């Protein structure tokens, strides 16, 4: 059975691009539009990996990561954050919030799948 990836991003473009890359790589994809929405769908989606953006309305990526790590059922789900090249501080903050790893935007589909493989069995 294919693995499920939950993508959390307020940009439809980014969601579509992740969807394309991930479904081509054989993953099942569930989408959420911001952190709050991400936490809402978590239970139904039961993701194997989560990919999240940082700057989003309602609830940002940091809040979302903390939410997942504080959830008894999903605390062990690997979370990859989407960041831009220059965001050393943001990467660091995401890491401290409990992010498992990161993907640099604009992402290369091959690297994306590699990053997932690195954190998900």
């Amino acid at each position, binding site marked *: 059975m294919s693995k499920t990836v939950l993508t959390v991003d307020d940009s439809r473009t*980014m969601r579509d*691009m992740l969807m394309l890359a991930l479904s081509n790589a054989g993953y099942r994809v569930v989408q959420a539009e911001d952190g709050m929405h991400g936490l809402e769908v978590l239970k139904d*989606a039961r*993701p194997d990996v989560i990919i999240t953006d940082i*700057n989003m309305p309602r609830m940002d990526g940091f809040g979302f990561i903390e939410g997942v790590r504080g959830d008894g059922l999903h605390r*062990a*789900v690997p979370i990859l954050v989407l960041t831009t090249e*220059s965001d050393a501080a943001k990467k660091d903050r995401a890491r401290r919030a*409990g992010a498992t790893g990161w993907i640099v935007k604009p992402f290369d589909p091959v690297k994306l799948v590699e990053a997932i493989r690195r*954190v998900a069995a």
Partner: protein
Amino acid sequence: MDAMVAIKQTFFQECEEQLGELEIGLLVLQDGDTDPETVNAVFRAVHSIKGGAGAFNLDELVHFAHVFENVLDHLRAGRLAASGDVLKTMLRAADMLADLVRAARDGGGTDAARRDMLAAELRALDPEAAGLESGGSHRDSSEDNSEGPVFEAVPISFDDMEIEPAPGEHHFCIRFTPKPDLYAKANETALLMRELGRLGEAVITCDFSRLPVLDEIDPEGSYLSWTIELRTVQDETAVRSVFEFVEWDCELDVVPGDAVQRVDEGAVESLIEKMQATIEAELASQKVPPTAIQAPRDELSAPTAGSAGQASSNPPGGKPDTGKSSQATIRVDLDRVDRLINLVGELVINQAMLTQMMLEAGLARASGVANGLDELEQLTREIQDSVMAIRAQPVKSVFQRIPRLVREVAAMTGKTVRLTTAGENTEVDKTVIERLADPLTHMIRNAIDHGLETPERRAAAGKPEEGLVHLSALHRSGRIVIEVADDGAGIDRPRVKAIAVAKGLITADAPLSDEEIDNLIFLPGFSTASAVSDISGRGVGMDVVRRSILALGGRISIRSKPRQGSTFTMSLPLTLAVLDGMVVTVAGETLVVPLTAIIETLQPKHASVHGFGGNTRVIAIRDQFIPLIDVGHELDYRAGFADPCKSVALLVESEGHVRSALLVDAILGQRQVVIKSLETNYQHVQGIAAATILGDGRVALILDVDAVVAGSRVAGAGFEQFCAAAG
């Protein structure tokens, strides 16, 4: 369609939304709002555009967005105050960004000089760059750069650290001790080992020596460490990149060395010290001379072989692959929705046919079939409403373009204008929205160019120098009503009348009411601008606006008060696909009159109908004289006139709040009908808006009430005189 092409389309759509958000946010900030979320939303809009543009290699767009984003970042961090001038520059930058997005989408270039000038203006706002602006070397600060150390890569060559490397193959000894945090962040040792295994041949040894007895084990703790000997064609960077995500949460040594030898801990320590010393020396000199570090070769025992990828003590938790997808929205091709709407239209017709057949078959209204049909009708209507709702969109998408337009026109005319909007979320059919943009644009231009006075004249009239334009949308009796109001001088009636006379549109002695004079501006060939201005006078007059509104099945009217301003009101159908109509017969033909036009129906009494001169007749309804229009005669269904007392009069209101009474032979009933275009299937017919198919399968024409009324007014001039005489 290629998936990436589709995503690119989505990107551009999203850009439009982001540009709208950006503009609204900046305008709200301009009004003095200081909500951090507003600033953040503005930042996010530009950041998203930059992000997507990067994915599609739209470099020009990325660069400008980047400069813009930097300044917004300062605004967000409070290093830059949101003053009026700053926001004005940002609004112009937002316009530039919009132009760049459109250029990227539609091809074609943008004004490079304007772009560079705005980019320079934006950079000038940068409080940090202000002192050291040297062009180009601005700091790369996209997000959260206000705190935290700046990491810079120090290039160090490890080439000379290798010991006797086999040709093309490297040997590494890796020692890896995870900290509890590594597991808390859902990283897994087994996966890291597996990744190492992919790089080449790995011999993995797990050290259990620190594992306590069961009672003392902390489930969140970390007790194991690993030694990996790796033979790979990859370099050290590739090896280290496996640990990229965990380097803070573990102790990691990657030592290039002989594969058959193990490095003991003390040796590693000394090696690290040497490496650190080397690195510090490099940092001090910022130069990378060749370094030679000998890895210890002696005192090493034989390796204990372990199998790759099976050394983890941290299996993944149970995470079944089941569960439902939880998307809040889906994207559907418009063609599919239109096809659905067409099918529902056919369903409506079919359902009407069934009802008709049932009646013809003589089945009682109370029969089970009739009840079933009633339910079917109800359901059909609900399906239709739901399907139409899919196509409905907020008018926001059109309203969003207006602030920019207002700024441009204001700049061109030298007027100061303040735009207020209301009802942006009012929903209407997508087609209506698309066709609304042009007339609305023209009305706004008109309101600023002709409606508002210059600041000097406003000041002289005791008004604030800043002129007001208010744009609003609301739903009213099954239609959408859009108003453009200005607080300008109002229609200059003597001048309008003089121009109309000069252009031969009316006679000099035509006794016109104020309202009728105002409506003269909708006549073809009328233009009040004394000098044809660049803005409104593009050969497009209000008559074109009126025609395009009419083509949408809408109406437009004007109310104006001298010195207080004018209000243009457009009323449009919510959809162009279905219509609630009254089915009537006229001279043996079946016609449908749009229900929205009808105010009431009545049976004319002999005493209330008055003729005066020629064929003009009026009907007195509650002390008002309303012109009586014989539809059969107007449409040339018959040469003579129907007897009003044997007919039914439909009191209708057409554009400009003009009331008329349409004379028809009989009313058959009310029905929802599916609109079929006559233009597409046949050709335009004067007085007819469209056609439909009735329950019995026959085609019926849908009356264009405004056109019929307008036609009869031309023919029956003199009514105005009558009204004037009657008082």
